[in-house]
Each structure stands twice: as structure tokens, then as C-alpha cells.
């Protein structure tokens, strides 16, 4: 999937950096998926995306992994 970022295993501030990069490069209304593997990264990614006007549309938690779906607007 082109609009997916795998930030698992990456420490601060990488997950947020990658999220903001894909947000900046996104065109149209397509959703973005971010994969992280800890609650702190989930919080950081959600906070950063919300600040950019995106909403957390869905969060799928599987064991310690989070798939965060971000929706524009």
C-alpha cells in the first residue's frame, strides 16, 4: 500500500517525522495508515496528525501493534 508507513521499532521522533512526511506528500483524500508498536508512539502520532487537521479514523490494536488510520479533515 503506498499510503502506509511502518514505524514499528522506531524510537522518538521517527514515527512522528514519518507521519508528517507522508501527510505533507499526500494528495487527494486518501487515508493514511501508520503502523507503530507501542502506546507512546500511538499517542505521539495521533497528536501530531490531529494538529495537522487530520483525524484518527480507526485504530486496530493487535497485541502490541497499532494500525492507525488517519483521515484528512
Amino acid at each position, binding site marked *: 500500500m503506498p499510503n502506509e508507513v511502518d514505524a514499528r*521499532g*522506531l*524510537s*522518538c*521522533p521517527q514515527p*512522528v517525522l514519518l507521519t508528517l512526511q507522508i501527510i505533507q506528500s499526500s494528495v487527494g483524500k486518501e487515508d493514511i495508515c501508520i503502523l507503530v508498536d507501542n*502506546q507512546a508512539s500511538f499517542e505521539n502520532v495521533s*497528536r*501530531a496528525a490531529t*494538529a495537522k487537521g487530520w483525524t484518527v479514523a480507526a485504530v486496530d490494536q493487535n497485541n502490541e501493534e497499532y494500525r492507525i488510520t488517519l483521515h484528512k479533515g
Partner: protein
Amino acid sequence: MKQNWFSSKAGIITVGGVIGGLAILLQYLSNPANMGICVACFERDIAGGIGLHRAPVVQYLRPEIMGFVLGAFLTALLFKEFKPRGGSSPLVRYVLGVVAMIGALVFLGCPWRVMLRLAGGDGNAIFGFLGLFGGVWAGTLFFKNGYNLGRTTGQNTVAGLLLPLIMLGLLALRLIFAPVEGQAQSGILWYSLKGPGAAHATVFISLLIGLLVGFLAQRSRFCTMGALRDLILFRQLHLFSGLVALLVAAMVGNIFLGQFKPGFTGQPVAHTQEIWNFAGMVVAGLAFALAGGCPGRQLFLSGEGDSDAGIFALGMITGAAISHNFGMASSPDGIGPHGVAAVIIGLLVCIGIGFGHLKRS
């Protein structure tokens, strides 16, 4: 999705304020002035306590540090966030820990103490803060250009337990070989008879406050370096608001307790060489930024099972020993005989690590 109140705006501000208040309380209860909580200083004292360096005025096994790790460990267990992991350039992190401590000891304090020194009216800390800001800013330039130490992978439970167990062991030693009045040695441990190492709250108060800070910081992800990094890199005020809350609470507490003494000369455990206060924290700030967390955050992460953060903390303890043994650490009289060399080499090491880990385009 379960919500974590501590990671909200109100949560991080509350945590910063409470930590600032607790630090001032520790000073009131006999911790050194403007050093209620200083992760670098306390790890340096631990290095002295177990004889890794023999600077007589800075030897004491600080229970606050053990409390930080064990508090974060118990909290992570409780909230199911304990996750053994590591393997993201461990030796690089160790070296960054060594360098961070060397830089911090040229200034005489970590980012936590920068804030506490400012809160106590120590004008020299303004240069330390500017240096810290500069170092973190330099770190963000590396991040913008693809700096990355690589991914962590899951590790065996034992790997995640080791640093909490080391801290438990140190705590046991502190309790078994308790300080003896007028004695510089108790069993295998070394104690200061004067100087900052001799100034400490009782072991149970230090431990209790350490555990509480460990809990608060684990939940809120409080990080003094991250506060500046996120501000510079993302224009994000979240962690920064916690740092400001710490400063404000500590300053109000100091004024209330008569501990606020504005000025430059005669400040406790501080020297007045502006350029080296600045440069020391540039090195430390850059090292903390490249390692992804302030010294406190590294301890809290190690409590969560992050063995890379644990290695960074052990690097800091090693750095403290080297600093004092090699005459690189400052004293209230000024920088050490090899402080200048320490800053230059430390900066070169950080820059080398930074450039060496840029993503190849």
C-alpha cells in the same frame, strides 16, 4: 481505545508541575541546592558511591535514580507496557551516554538541573539552557536529513529486566551498607563527608519520590530534551508545556521556601564561565537528541524494558567516572584541566555519529 489522561495537555502540565514541586521538596529535605533532582549528577554520585571515580565530594548511591527506573518498571507492568526490546545501535547509544555525561559535567547538570538552577535564580544556567537549546537544534538538523539509529527488535524478557534488576541491586547495597556518621566508607560503598554528595534526603523519602516520578513520567512520556526537540522540529508545545510547568512550579516553590537567590556568583554547585556552561550543554543536548531522550527519559524507557536506553544510562555512569578520573568535570572553581578537550572531542564524536547515521539518498 483506552485513553491515557497523563498524555493529555492537562496531564503533561500536571506532571511537570508535580515533578518541579517534588524536586524543590527534596531540596528542602536536604538534597543539594538547585539539585533536588538531577539525573546526571545523581548518576555521577552513584559512580562515586561504587568507587568508579574517587572524587570525594560526589559519592552517594542516590535512591531517586533507582526509584525512577523501578517506578517506571512497575508502572509499565501495571499498564501492560513492559516490552523487552533493543538492538538499535547499542554501542552508539553507549558512547552517546558517555559523551552526554561528559558535556553535562562541564556545565554541572543535566537538562533537569538546568531548569532547577534557573528556578533557583542561577543566572549561569541561562547559558546552559541556551547551549541545551543549541545542541538539540543541531540534533534536529540531523533528524531532518534522515538520521536514524535503526529499528529495535523484541528481546528476551531477561534483557528487559536487567536494568531494573541492577537498580534493585544498587538499592539493596545502599540499604545493607548504609552510611555511617563521619565515615567515608561503609562496607563496599563510598560516601561523601562534605559537598553535594553529603547532602541528601533520607533513603525512604528519596526512593518514594523517585518511584512517584517514575510513575508520572512513564505515563506522561515526560522528556526534557523532547520538549525542546518537538518545539523545534514540529512546532509542537506538548512536552514543552510540561517543562515550563516544572520551571514555574520549582520557581514558585523556591520563592515560597526562601530558596530563590538570583545572581551569577556564589551559586550552589555552579561555575561562572559562560562559554563553557554553554558549550558543555551543547554537547550534552546534541548527545541526548541523537539518542532520542533526556537522561530521565532514558531511565524511564529502560524501566519499560528498553535495553538500548539502559545501555545509554550505563554509558552515562561510565562517562561520569571518566569525567572525574580524567579531570574533565567542572567544579565551582571553574572547568577542569581537561574540560576544553572534553567539549571538543565530545562535539566531534556527536557530529561523527550524526553524519554516520544519515540515510543514504
